[in-house]
Protein backbone atom coordinates (compact mmCIF):
# COMPACT_ATOMS: atom_id res chain seq x y z
CA UNK A 1 0.00 0.00 0.00
CA UNK A 2 1.20 3.46 -0.83
CA UNK A 3 0.68 6.21 1.72
CA UNK A 4 0.17 9.94 1.65
CA UNK A 5 2.76 12.11 3.34
CA UNK A 6 3.17 15.84 3.90
CA UNK A 7 6.47 16.49 2.14
CA UNK A 8 8.37 19.35 0.57
CA UNK A 9 9.54 18.62 -2.99
CA UNK A 10 13.13 18.12 -1.84
CA UNK A 11 12.01 15.62 0.81
CA UNK A 12 9.97 13.76 -1.81
CA UNK A 13 13.08 13.51 -4.00
CA UNK A 14 15.20 12.39 -1.04
CA UNK A 15 12.55 9.75 -0.28
CA UNK A 16 12.76 8.45 -3.86
CA UNK A 17 16.55 8.32 -3.46
CA UNK A 18 16.16 6.31 -0.25
CA UNK A 19 13.83 3.87 -1.97
CA UNK A 20 16.08 3.57 -5.03
CA UNK A 21 19.04 3.00 -2.70
CA UNK A 22 21.79 4.00 -5.15
CA UNK A 23 25.30 2.63 -4.79
CA UNK A 24 26.94 6.05 -4.77
CA UNK A 25 25.76 9.61 -4.14
CA UNK A 26 28.25 12.45 -4.52
CA UNK A 27 26.85 15.92 -3.93
CA UNK A 28 27.62 19.32 -2.54
CA UNK A 29 25.01 21.49 -0.79
CA UNK A 30 23.63 24.53 -2.57
CA UNK A 31 20.43 26.48 -1.99
CA UNK A 32 17.67 25.52 -2.78
CA UNK A 33 18.76 21.91 -3.36
CA UNK A 34 20.37 21.55 0.09
CA UNK A 35 17.52 19.84 1.91
CA UNK A 36 17.54 17.02 -0.67
CA UNK A 37 21.08 16.05 0.14
CA UNK A 38 20.72 16.89 3.83
CA UNK A 39 17.69 14.59 4.13
CA UNK A 40 19.44 11.86 2.18
CA UNK A 41 22.57 12.22 4.35
CA UNK A 42 20.33 11.48 7.35
CA UNK A 43 19.16 8.27 5.66
CA UNK A 44 22.80 7.29 5.15
CA UNK A 45 23.67 8.09 8.79
CA UNK A 46 20.63 6.16 10.01
CA UNK A 47 21.62 3.12 7.97
CA UNK A 48 18.44 3.19 5.87
CA UNK A 49 20.42 2.91 2.63
CA UNK A 50 23.60 1.12 1.58
CA UNK A 51 24.82 4.11 -0.37
CA UNK A 52 28.43 5.24 -0.35
CA UNK A 53 27.93 8.95 0.26
CA UNK A 54 30.87 10.92 -1.08
CA UNK A 55 31.20 14.32 0.54
CA UNK A 56 33.19 16.54 -1.77
CA UNK A 57 34.62 20.04 -1.67
CA UNK A 58 32.81 21.35 -4.74
CA UNK A 59 30.28 20.47 -7.42
CA UNK A 60 33.04 19.93 -9.95
CA UNK A 61 34.31 17.15 -7.72
CA UNK A 62 30.77 15.89 -7.10
CA UNK A 63 30.15 15.31 -10.79
CA UNK A 64 33.67 13.93 -11.24
CA UNK A 65 33.04 11.39 -8.47
CA UNK A 66 29.73 10.52 -10.11
CA UNK A 67 31.41 9.85 -13.45
CA UNK A 68 34.09 7.70 -11.85
CA UNK A 69 31.60 5.69 -9.83
CA UNK A 70 29.28 5.27 -12.80
CA UNK A 71 32.11 4.06 -15.03
CA UNK A 72 32.96 1.56 -12.31
CA UNK A 73 29.44 0.17 -12.69
CA UNK A 74 27.65 1.82 -9.78
CA UNK A 75 24.13 3.23 -9.78
CA UNK A 76 24.84 6.90 -9.10
CA UNK A 77 22.80 9.94 -8.12
CA UNK A 78 23.43 13.57 -7.30
CA UNK A 79 21.52 16.82 -6.83
CA UNK A 80 22.31 20.46 -7.42
CA UNK A 81 21.05 23.92 -8.39
CA UNK A 82 22.10 26.90 -10.50
CA UNK A 83 25.68 27.90 -9.70
CA UNK A 84 26.40 24.41 -8.44
CA UNK A 85 25.44 23.07 -11.84
CA UNK A 86 27.57 25.77 -13.43
CA UNK A 87 30.58 24.64 -11.43
CA UNK A 88 29.95 21.06 -12.63
CA UNK A 89 29.89 22.23 -16.23
CA UNK A 90 32.96 20.58 -17.64
CA UNK A 91 32.01 17.22 -16.17
CA UNK A 92 28.31 17.56 -17.08
CA UNK A 93 29.30 17.17 -20.73
CA UNK A 94 31.77 14.40 -19.92
CA UNK A 95 29.09 12.47 -17.99
CA UNK A 96 26.86 12.43 -21.07
CA UNK A 97 29.55 11.67 -23.62
CA UNK A 98 31.04 8.94 -21.41
CA UNK A 99 27.50 7.51 -21.39
CA UNK A 100 27.16 7.49 -17.60
CA UNK A 101 23.52 6.87 -16.56
CA UNK A 102 23.69 9.30 -13.60
CA UNK A 103 20.44 10.68 -12.22
CA UNK A 104 20.41 14.27 -10.95
CA UNK A 105 17.77 16.10 -8.95
CA UNK A 106 17.99 19.62 -10.33
CA UNK A 107 16.25 22.27 -8.25
CA UNK A 108 15.85 25.16 -10.67
CA UNK A 109 17.29 28.45 -9.52
CA UNK A 110 18.46 31.65 -11.16
CA UNK A 111 22.07 31.73 -12.27
CA UNK A 112 23.76 34.72 -10.71
CA UNK A 113 24.43 37.56 -11.05
CA UNK A 114 23.36 39.61 -9.35
CA UNK A 115 23.19 37.00 -6.61
CA UNK A 116 19.81 35.35 -6.47
CA UNK A 117 18.78 32.09 -4.82
CA UNK A 118 15.21 31.93 -6.15
CA UNK A 119 13.56 30.09 -8.99
CA UNK A 120 14.01 30.44 -12.69
CA UNK A 121 15.11 28.08 -15.44
CA UNK A 122 18.36 29.69 -16.51
CA UNK A 123 20.32 26.84 -14.92
CA UNK A 124 18.70 23.95 -16.80
CA UNK A 125 18.45 25.86 -20.08
CA UNK A 126 22.20 26.23 -20.06
CA UNK A 127 22.62 22.44 -20.07
CA UNK A 128 20.21 21.79 -22.92
CA UNK A 129 22.95 20.96 -25.43
CA UNK A 130 25.05 18.93 -22.99
CA UNK A 131 23.61 15.53 -23.89
CA UNK A 132 21.52 15.03 -20.75
CA UNK A 133 17.91 13.91 -20.79
CA UNK A 134 15.82 16.61 -19.09
CA UNK A 135 12.47 16.11 -17.36
CA UNK A 136 10.26 18.81 -15.81
CA UNK A 137 8.03 18.38 -12.73
CA UNK A 138 5.03 20.48 -11.74
CA UNK A 139 5.13 19.56 -8.05
CA UNK A 140 6.75 17.30 -5.47
CA UNK A 141 4.71 14.31 -6.60
CA UNK A 142 5.97 14.62 -10.15
CA UNK A 143 9.55 15.19 -9.01
CA UNK A 144 9.28 11.97 -6.98
CA UNK A 145 7.67 10.03 -9.84
CA UNK A 146 10.09 11.40 -12.44
CA UNK A 147 13.12 10.53 -10.34
CA UNK A 148 12.00 6.90 -10.10
CA UNK A 149 11.41 6.73 -13.85
CA UNK A 150 14.70 8.50 -14.55
CA UNK A 151 16.68 5.55 -13.21
CA UNK A 152 15.12 3.14 -15.68
CA UNK A 153 15.41 5.60 -18.56
CA UNK A 154 19.07 6.36 -17.87
CA UNK A 155 20.13 2.75 -17.42
CA UNK A 156 18.27 1.33 -20.42
CA UNK A 157 20.91 -0.37 -22.60
CA UNK A 158 19.71 1.57 -25.66
CA UNK A 159 20.08 4.87 -23.82
CA UNK A 160 22.87 5.00 -21.21
CA UNK A 161 22.59 8.75 -20.76
CA UNK A 162 22.36 10.88 -17.63
CA UNK A 163 18.98 12.35 -16.66
CA UNK A 164 18.22 15.63 -14.87
CA UNK A 165 14.86 15.82 -13.06
CA UNK A 166 13.84 19.45 -12.59
CA UNK A 167 11.53 21.11 -10.11
CA UNK A 168 11.10 24.77 -9.16
CA UNK A 169 13.38 26.10 -6.45
CA UNK A 170 11.56 27.03 -3.22
CA UNK A 171 8.15 27.02 -4.92
CA UNK A 172 7.95 23.24 -4.92
CA UNK A 173 11.33 22.25 -3.43
CA UNK A 174 10.34 23.87 -0.12
CA UNK A 175 6.58 23.85 -0.51
CA UNK A 176 4.99 21.10 1.54
CA UNK A 177 2.21 19.22 -0.23
CA UNK A 178 0.46 15.89 -0.13
CA UNK A 179 2.67 13.34 -1.85
CA UNK A 180 1.78 9.71 -2.47
CA UNK A 181 4.75 7.58 -1.48
CA UNK A 182 4.74 4.04 -2.85
CA UNK A 183 5.92 0.95 -1.02
CA UNK A 184 9.71 0.69 -0.87
CA UNK A 185 9.50 -2.79 -2.37
CA UNK A 186 7.38 -1.58 -5.30
CA UNK A 187 9.82 1.23 -6.12
CA UNK A 188 12.78 -1.15 -5.88
CA UNK A 189 11.01 -3.66 -8.09
CA UNK A 190 10.24 -0.94 -10.62
CA UNK A 191 13.81 0.35 -10.92
CA UNK A 192 15.22 -3.18 -10.72
CA UNK A 193 18.79 -4.10 -10.11
CA UNK A 194 21.41 -2.28 -12.16
CA UNK A 195 23.53 -4.66 -14.20
CA UNK A 196 26.15 -2.50 -15.90
CA UNK A 197 27.30 -3.84 -19.24
CA UNK A 198 30.49 -1.84 -19.34
CA UNK A 199 31.88 -1.81 -15.81
CA UNK A 200 35.50 -0.78 -15.32
CA UNK A 201 35.64 -3.23 -12.44
CA UNK A 202 34.77 -6.16 -14.72
CA UNK A 203 38.38 -7.29 -14.95
CA UNK A 204 37.54 -10.21 -17.22
CA UNK A 205 36.52 -7.72 -19.89
CA UNK A 206 38.84 -4.72 -19.65
CA UNK A 207 37.50 -1.35 -20.83
CA UNK A 208 38.79 2.15 -21.28
CA UNK A 209 36.84 5.23 -20.25
CA UNK A 210 37.76 8.78 -21.16
CA UNK A 211 40.79 8.28 -23.44
CA UNK A 212 42.04 10.73 -26.05
CA UNK A 213 39.61 10.60 -28.93
CA UNK A 214 40.66 12.79 -31.85
CA UNK A 215 39.56 13.11 -35.47
CA UNK A 216 39.70 9.36 -35.82
CA UNK A 217 36.64 8.41 -33.69
CA UNK A 218 35.36 11.44 -31.71
CA UNK A 219 32.83 12.25 -34.42
CA UNK A 220 31.47 8.67 -34.37
CA UNK A 221 31.09 8.85 -30.60
CA UNK A 222 29.08 12.05 -30.93
CA UNK A 223 26.93 10.34 -33.56
CA UNK A 224 26.30 7.53 -31.06
CA UNK A 225 25.10 10.10 -28.52
CA UNK A 226 22.56 11.24 -31.10
CA UNK A 227 21.38 7.67 -31.50
CA UNK A 228 21.07 7.29 -27.73
CA UNK A 229 18.91 10.43 -27.62
CA UNK A 230 16.75 9.06 -30.40
CA UNK A 231 16.28 5.85 -28.43
CA UNK A 232 15.52 7.86 -25.29
CA UNK A 233 12.47 9.32 -27.02
CA UNK A 234 11.00 5.80 -27.24
CA UNK A 235 12.32 4.50 -23.91
CA UNK A 236 10.93 7.47 -21.94
CA UNK A 237 7.46 6.58 -23.24
CA UNK A 238 7.89 2.87 -22.54
CA UNK A 239 9.05 3.57 -18.99
CA UNK A 240 6.13 6.00 -18.50
CA UNK A 241 3.67 3.33 -19.67
CA UNK A 242 5.13 0.80 -17.24
CA UNK A 243 5.08 3.39 -14.46
CA UNK A 244 1.48 4.39 -15.21
CA UNK A 245 0.41 0.74 -15.09
CA UNK A 246 2.25 0.04 -11.84
CA UNK A 247 1.40 3.21 -9.92
CA UNK A 248 -1.79 4.35 -11.63
CA UNK A 249 -0.46 7.57 -13.13
CA UNK A 250 -0.72 9.26 -16.50
CA UNK A 251 2.75 10.30 -17.63
CA UNK A 252 3.69 10.94 -21.24
CA UNK A 253 5.96 13.29 -23.16
CA UNK A 254 3.81 16.21 -22.01
CA UNK A 255 0.51 16.83 -20.26
CA UNK A 256 -2.34 18.35 -22.28
CA UNK A 257 -4.89 20.15 -20.10
CA UNK A 258 -8.28 20.96 -21.68
CA UNK A 259 -6.35 21.26 -24.92
CA UNK A 260 -8.36 19.06 -27.26
CA UNK A 261 -11.09 21.57 -28.13
CA UNK A 262 -9.09 24.68 -27.24
CA UNK A 263 -8.54 27.52 -29.70
CA UNK A 264 -5.80 29.20 -27.72
CA UNK A 265 -3.19 27.60 -25.48
CA UNK A 266 -0.24 28.39 -23.27
CA UNK A 267 2.83 26.17 -23.09
CA UNK A 268 4.54 26.40 -19.71
CA UNK A 269 6.66 24.01 -17.64
CA UNK A 270 7.07 23.16 -13.96
CA UNK A 271 5.07 24.75 -11.12
CA UNK A 272 3.57 27.58 -13.18
CA UNK A 273 1.68 25.00 -15.23
CA UNK A 274 -0.27 24.22 -12.05
CA UNK A 275 -1.20 27.89 -11.60
CA UNK A 276 -2.14 28.07 -15.29
CA UNK A 277 -4.60 25.17 -14.81
CA UNK A 278 -6.52 27.31 -12.33
CA UNK A 279 -6.65 30.10 -14.92
CA UNK A 280 -7.81 27.72 -17.66
CA UNK A 281 -10.66 26.47 -15.44
CA UNK A 282 -11.69 30.03 -14.64
CA UNK A 283 -11.69 31.15 -18.29
CA UNK A 284 -13.50 28.00 -19.36
CA UNK A 285 -16.30 29.00 -16.97
CA UNK A 286 -16.61 32.15 -19.09
CA UNK A 287 -16.98 29.92 -22.13
CA UNK A 288 -13.54 30.74 -23.52
CA UNK A 289 -11.86 27.89 -25.37
CA UNK A 290 -8.46 27.89 -23.72
CA UNK A 291 -6.09 25.07 -22.89
CA UNK A 292 -2.63 24.27 -21.62
CA UNK A 293 0.30 22.14 -22.66
CA UNK A 294 2.78 21.30 -19.93
CA UNK A 295 6.06 19.92 -21.29
CA UNK A 296 7.50 17.05 -19.28
CA UNK A 297 10.30 15.87 -21.56
CA UNK A 298 12.47 18.76 -22.73
CA UNK A 299 15.43 16.64 -23.89
CA UNK A 300 14.97 14.83 -26.19
CA UNK A 301 12.61 17.51 -27.52
CA UNK A 302 9.43 15.79 -28.76
CA UNK A 303 9.00 18.16 -31.72
CA UNK A 304 6.67 16.00 -33.77
CA UNK A 305 4.26 15.19 -30.96
CA UNK A 306 4.21 18.81 -29.78
CA UNK A 307 3.43 20.07 -33.28
CA UNK A 308 0.65 17.54 -33.59
CA UNK A 309 -0.85 18.41 -30.20
CA UNK A 310 -0.87 22.14 -30.98
CA UNK A 311 -1.74 22.03 -34.70
CA UNK A 312 -5.46 22.76 -34.24
CA UNK A 313 -4.96 25.98 -32.28
CA UNK A 314 -5.56 29.51 -33.56
CA UNK A 315 -2.77 30.96 -31.44
CA UNK A 316 -0.25 29.74 -28.91
CA UNK A 317 1.80 31.48 -26.24
CA UNK A 318 4.93 30.05 -24.66
CA UNK A 319 5.94 31.12 -21.18
CA UNK A 320 9.69 31.04 -20.61
CA UNK A 321 11.33 31.33 -17.20
CA UNK A 322 14.66 32.27 -18.77
CA UNK A 323 16.06 34.35 -21.61
CA UNK A 324 18.30 33.22 -24.41
CA UNK A 325 20.26 36.45 -24.54
CA UNK A 326 21.04 37.58 -28.05
CA UNK A 327 18.93 34.87 -29.65
CA UNK A 328 16.19 35.85 -32.10
CA UNK A 329 14.14 38.56 -30.41
CA UNK A 330 15.93 37.88 -27.11
CA UNK A 331 13.24 35.29 -26.58
CA UNK A 332 13.25 32.29 -24.26
CA UNK A 333 14.64 28.92 -25.31
CA UNK A 334 11.36 27.01 -25.08
CA UNK A 335 9.65 29.45 -27.42
CA UNK A 336 12.47 29.40 -29.96
CA UNK A 337 12.57 25.63 -30.15
CA UNK A 338 8.81 25.21 -30.27
CA UNK A 339 8.49 27.89 -32.96
CA UNK A 340 11.06 26.03 -35.06
CA UNK A 341 9.31 22.71 -34.45
CA UNK A 342 5.96 24.05 -35.62
CA UNK A 343 7.32 25.98 -38.60
CA UNK A 344 9.32 23.03 -39.93
CA UNK A 345 6.23 20.85 -39.79
CA UNK A 346 4.15 23.38 -41.66
CA UNK A 347 2.05 24.23 -38.60
CA UNK A 348 1.45 27.94 -39.04
CA UNK A 349 -0.20 30.03 -36.36
CA UNK A 350 0.50 33.26 -34.51
CA UNK A 351 2.93 32.62 -31.65
CA UNK A 352 4.20 34.82 -28.86
CA UNK A 353 6.65 34.41 -26.03
CA UNK A 354 6.13 35.61 -22.48
CA UNK A 355 9.21 35.71 -20.31
CA UNK A 356 8.22 35.61 -16.62
CA UNK A 357 9.31 34.93 -13.08
CA UNK A 358 13.04 35.57 -13.38
CA UNK A 359 14.89 35.33 -10.07
CA UNK A 360 11.79 34.05 -8.31
CA UNK A 361 9.46 36.94 -9.27
CA UNK A 362 6.02 35.64 -8.36
CA UNK A 363 3.64 34.79 -11.19
CA UNK A 364 0.00 35.40 -10.34
CA UNK A 365 -3.12 33.89 -11.92
CA UNK A 366 -4.21 37.31 -13.24
CA UNK A 367 -0.89 37.68 -15.08
CA UNK A 368 -1.35 34.32 -16.75
CA UNK A 369 -4.91 35.36 -17.51
CA UNK A 370 -3.57 38.45 -19.29
CA UNK A 371 -1.52 36.13 -21.53
CA UNK A 372 -4.63 34.16 -22.43
CA UNK A 373 -6.58 37.37 -23.14
CA UNK A 374 -3.75 38.62 -25.37
CA UNK A 375 -3.79 35.37 -27.30
CA UNK A 376 -7.57 35.34 -27.64
CA UNK A 377 -7.24 38.74 -29.32
CA UNK A 378 -4.39 37.45 -31.49
CA UNK A 379 -6.55 34.48 -32.50
CA UNK A 380 -9.21 36.92 -33.72
CA UNK A 381 -6.95 39.29 -35.60
CA UNK A 382 -4.26 36.83 -36.63
CA UNK A 383 -1.71 39.49 -35.73
CA UNK A 384 0.94 39.26 -33.01
CA UNK A 385 1.78 42.75 -31.80
CA UNK A 386 4.93 41.77 -29.93
CA UNK A 387 6.85 38.56 -30.37
CA UNK A 388 8.38 38.70 -26.89
CA UNK A 389 6.79 40.23 -23.79
CA UNK A 390 8.62 40.48 -20.49
CA UNK A 391 5.64 39.84 -18.26
CA UNK A 392 5.29 42.06 -15.17
CA UNK A 393 8.73 43.56 -15.46
CA UNK A 394 8.92 46.98 -13.82
Amino acid at each position, binding site marked *: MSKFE*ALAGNEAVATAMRQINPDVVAAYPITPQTSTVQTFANYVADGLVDTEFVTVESEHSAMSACVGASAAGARVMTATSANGLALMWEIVYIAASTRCPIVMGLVNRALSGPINIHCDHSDVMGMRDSGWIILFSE*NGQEAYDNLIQAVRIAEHPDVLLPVAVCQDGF*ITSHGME*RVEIYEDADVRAFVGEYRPQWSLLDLEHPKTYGPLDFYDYYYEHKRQQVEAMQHAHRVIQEVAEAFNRTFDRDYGLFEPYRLEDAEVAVVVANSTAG*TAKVVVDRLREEGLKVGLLKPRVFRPFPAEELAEALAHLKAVAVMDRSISFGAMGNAGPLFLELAAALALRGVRMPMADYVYGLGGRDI*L*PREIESVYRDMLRVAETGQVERMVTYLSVR
Partner: protein
Amino acid sequence: MTDMVEIRWHGRGGQGVVTAGKLLAETALGTGQYFQAFPDYGPERMGAPIRSYTRLSSRPITIHSQVENPDVVLVLDSTLLGTVSVAEGLKEDGILLVNTGMQPQEVREITGFHTGKVFTVDASHIAIEEMGREITNTPMLGAFARATGLFDTDTLIEQVRHWFGSKVSPEIVEANIRALRRAAEEVVEG
Protein backbone atom coordinates in the same frame (compact mmCIF):
# COMPACT_ATOMS: atom_id res chain seq x y z
CA MET B 1 -14.79 22.64 3.69
CA THR B 2 -15.18 22.85 -0.09
CA ASP B 3 -13.41 26.02 -1.14
CA MET B 4 -9.80 26.81 -0.55
CA VAL B 5 -8.74 28.60 2.63
CA GLU B 6 -5.57 30.69 2.39
CA ILE B 7 -3.65 31.54 5.53
CA ARG B 8 -0.73 33.89 6.10
CA TRP B 9 1.49 33.68 9.15
CA HIS B 10 3.57 36.54 10.50
CA GLY B 11 6.32 36.00 13.02
CA ARG B 12 9.99 36.42 13.61
CA GLY B 13 12.77 34.01 12.68
CA GLY B 14 13.10 31.41 15.44
CA GLN B 15 9.51 31.62 16.67
CA GLY B 16 8.36 28.45 14.93
CA VAL B 17 6.32 30.06 12.15
CA VAL B 18 7.44 27.46 9.62
CA THR B 19 6.82 24.61 12.06
CA ALA B 20 3.32 25.91 12.79
CA GLY B 21 2.52 25.96 9.07
CA LYS B 22 3.81 22.42 8.71
CA LEU B 23 1.85 21.26 11.75
CA LEU B 24 -1.31 22.63 10.20
CA ALA B 25 -0.43 20.86 6.93
CA GLU B 26 0.05 17.58 8.81
CA THR B 27 -3.32 18.09 10.46
CA ALA B 28 -4.89 18.59 7.03
CA LEU B 29 -3.16 15.42 5.82
CA GLY B 30 -4.51 13.51 8.80
CA THR B 31 -8.04 14.65 8.02
CA GLY B 32 -7.81 13.75 4.32
CA GLN B 33 -7.56 17.29 2.97
CA TYR B 34 -5.23 18.80 0.41
CA PHE B 35 -2.78 21.47 1.54
CA GLN B 36 0.28 23.53 0.80
CA ALA B 37 2.66 24.99 3.36
CA PHE B 38 5.41 27.26 2.13
CA PRO B 39 7.55 29.96 3.67
CA ASP B 40 8.49 33.26 2.10
CA TYR B 41 12.21 32.57 1.94
CA GLY B 42 14.66 35.37 2.26
CA PRO B 43 17.82 35.67 4.29
CA GLU B 44 17.04 33.63 7.40
CA ARG B 45 17.91 35.56 10.52
CA MET B 46 16.85 35.03 14.10
CA GLY B 47 14.41 37.78 15.02
CA ALA B 48 13.77 39.12 11.52
CA PRO B 49 10.13 39.45 10.40
CA ILE B 50 9.11 36.43 8.31
CA ARG B 51 5.98 35.26 6.58
CA SER B 52 4.71 31.80 5.86
CA TYR B 53 1.64 30.52 4.04
CA THR B 54 -0.77 27.61 4.25
CA ARG B 55 -3.47 26.61 1.78
CA LEU B 56 -6.17 24.11 2.74
CA SER B 57 -8.76 22.57 0.44
CA SER B 58 -10.91 19.51 0.02
CA ARG B 59 -9.74 19.33 -3.60
CA PRO B 60 -6.24 19.05 -5.13
CA ILE B 61 -4.41 22.38 -5.13
CA THR B 62 -2.46 23.21 -8.29
CA ILE B 63 -1.95 26.95 -7.83
CA HIS B 64 1.68 27.75 -7.05
CA SER B 65 1.70 31.52 -6.67
CA GLN B 66 2.02 33.46 -3.44
CA VAL B 67 -1.07 34.11 -1.32
CA GLU B 68 -2.27 37.65 -2.13
CA ASN B 69 -5.62 37.79 -0.36
CA PRO B 70 -5.58 35.50 2.65
CA ASP B 71 -8.75 34.41 4.44
CA VAL B 72 -6.89 34.22 7.73
CA VAL B 73 -3.84 36.09 9.07
CA LEU B 74 -2.04 34.88 12.19
CA VAL B 75 0.44 37.12 13.98
CA LEU B 76 2.74 35.27 16.37
CA ASP B 77 4.54 38.36 17.60
CA SER B 78 2.61 41.52 18.49
CA THR B 79 5.72 43.71 18.16
CA LEU B 80 5.23 43.26 14.40
CA LEU B 81 1.91 45.13 14.53
CA GLY B 82 3.57 48.51 14.38
CA THR B 83 6.20 47.60 11.77
CA VAL B 84 4.55 45.19 9.31
CA SER B 85 1.19 45.74 7.58
CA VAL B 86 -0.24 42.46 8.82
CA ALA B 87 -3.73 43.18 7.47
CA GLU B 88 -2.48 43.88 3.94
CA GLY B 89 -4.55 42.01 1.39
CA LEU B 90 -6.62 40.30 4.11
CA LYS B 91 -10.12 39.66 2.76
CA GLU B 92 -12.78 42.05 4.03
CA ASP B 93 -14.60 39.22 5.74
CA GLY B 94 -11.33 37.62 6.81
CA ILE B 95 -10.02 36.66 10.23
CA LEU B 96 -7.11 38.34 12.00
CA LEU B 97 -5.71 36.43 14.98
CA VAL B 98 -2.98 38.07 17.05
CA ASN B 99 -0.85 36.86 19.93
CA THR B 100 -1.19 39.78 22.33
CA GLY B 101 -2.50 40.83 25.70
CA MET B 102 -4.45 43.60 23.96
CA GLN B 103 -8.18 43.50 23.30
CA PRO B 104 -9.37 42.95 19.69
CA GLN B 105 -10.58 46.55 19.47
CA GLU B 106 -7.05 47.85 20.14
CA VAL B 107 -5.70 45.58 17.41
CA ARG B 108 -8.32 46.91 15.01
CA GLU B 109 -7.14 50.46 15.70
CA ILE B 110 -3.46 49.65 15.20
CA THR B 111 -3.93 47.55 12.06
CA GLY B 112 -6.78 49.51 10.50
CA PHE B 113 -8.71 46.26 9.96
CA HIS B 114 -12.29 47.26 10.74
CA THR B 115 -14.22 44.55 8.93
CA GLY B 116 -14.16 40.77 9.34
CA LYS B 117 -13.28 39.24 12.67
CA VAL B 118 -10.41 40.00 15.03
CA PHE B 119 -9.30 37.55 17.70
CA THR B 120 -6.63 38.00 20.35
CA VAL B 121 -5.01 35.59 22.77
CA ASP B 122 -2.01 36.08 25.05
CA ALA B 123 -0.20 33.05 23.68
CA SER B 124 3.18 34.29 24.96
CA HIS B 125 1.88 34.44 28.52
CA ILE B 126 0.31 30.98 28.17
CA ALA B 127 3.50 29.56 26.65
CA ILE B 128 5.68 30.92 29.45
CA GLU B 129 3.33 29.63 32.13
CA GLU B 130 2.84 26.19 30.62
CA MET B 131 6.16 25.57 28.87
CA GLY B 132 8.54 27.98 30.55
CA ARG B 133 9.52 29.38 27.14
CA GLU B 134 7.92 31.85 24.78
CA ILE B 135 7.24 29.40 21.97
CA THR B 136 3.85 30.43 20.72
CA ASN B 137 3.15 28.25 17.71
CA THR B 138 1.24 25.47 19.44
CA PRO B 139 -0.97 27.75 21.57
CA MET B 140 -1.64 29.83 18.43
CA LEU B 141 -2.82 26.68 16.67
CA GLY B 142 -5.30 26.12 19.48
CA ALA B 143 -6.58 29.67 19.11
CA PHE B 144 -6.67 29.19 15.33
CA ALA B 145 -8.86 26.11 15.66
CA ARG B 146 -11.30 27.99 17.86
CA ALA B 147 -11.30 31.18 15.77
CA THR B 148 -11.78 29.52 12.39
CA GLY B 149 -13.65 26.36 13.30
CA LEU B 150 -11.60 24.57 10.62
CA PHE B 151 -10.36 21.88 12.99
CA ASP B 152 -11.41 20.78 16.44
CA THR B 153 -8.82 21.01 19.18
CA ASP B 154 -8.75 17.25 19.76
CA THR B 155 -7.66 16.66 16.15
CA LEU B 156 -4.87 19.21 16.60
CA ILE B 157 -3.79 17.66 19.90
CA GLU B 158 -3.54 14.29 18.20
CA GLN B 159 -1.27 15.88 15.58
CA VAL B 160 0.89 17.57 18.23
CA ARG B 161 1.41 14.18 19.90
CA HIS B 162 2.27 12.63 16.56
CA TRP B 163 4.54 15.50 15.45
CA PHE B 164 6.45 16.12 18.68
CA GLY B 165 6.10 12.60 20.09
CA SER B 166 9.36 11.22 18.75
CA LYS B 167 11.27 14.50 18.93
CA VAL B 168 10.87 15.73 22.52
CA SER B 169 10.15 14.37 26.00
CA PRO B 170 6.59 13.42 27.06
CA GLU B 171 6.63 16.34 29.55
CA ILE B 172 7.23 18.84 26.75
CA VAL B 173 4.52 17.25 24.60
CA GLU B 174 2.03 17.54 27.47
CA ALA B 175 3.06 21.15 28.15
CA ASN B 176 2.42 21.96 24.47
CA ILE B 177 -0.99 20.33 24.66
CA ARG B 178 -1.92 22.25 27.83
CA ALA B 179 -0.88 25.49 26.12
CA LEU B 180 -2.89 24.62 23.00
CA ARG B 181 -6.01 23.84 25.05
CA ARG B 182 -5.71 26.99 27.16
CA ALA B 183 -5.28 29.22 24.13
CA ALA B 184 -8.38 27.70 22.53
CA GLU B 185 -10.31 28.58 25.69
CA GLU B 186 -8.85 32.02 26.31
CA VAL B 187 -9.00 33.46 22.78
CA VAL B 188 -11.42 36.41 22.56
CA GLU B 189 -13.28 37.94 19.61
CA GLY B 190 -14.10 41.58 19.09
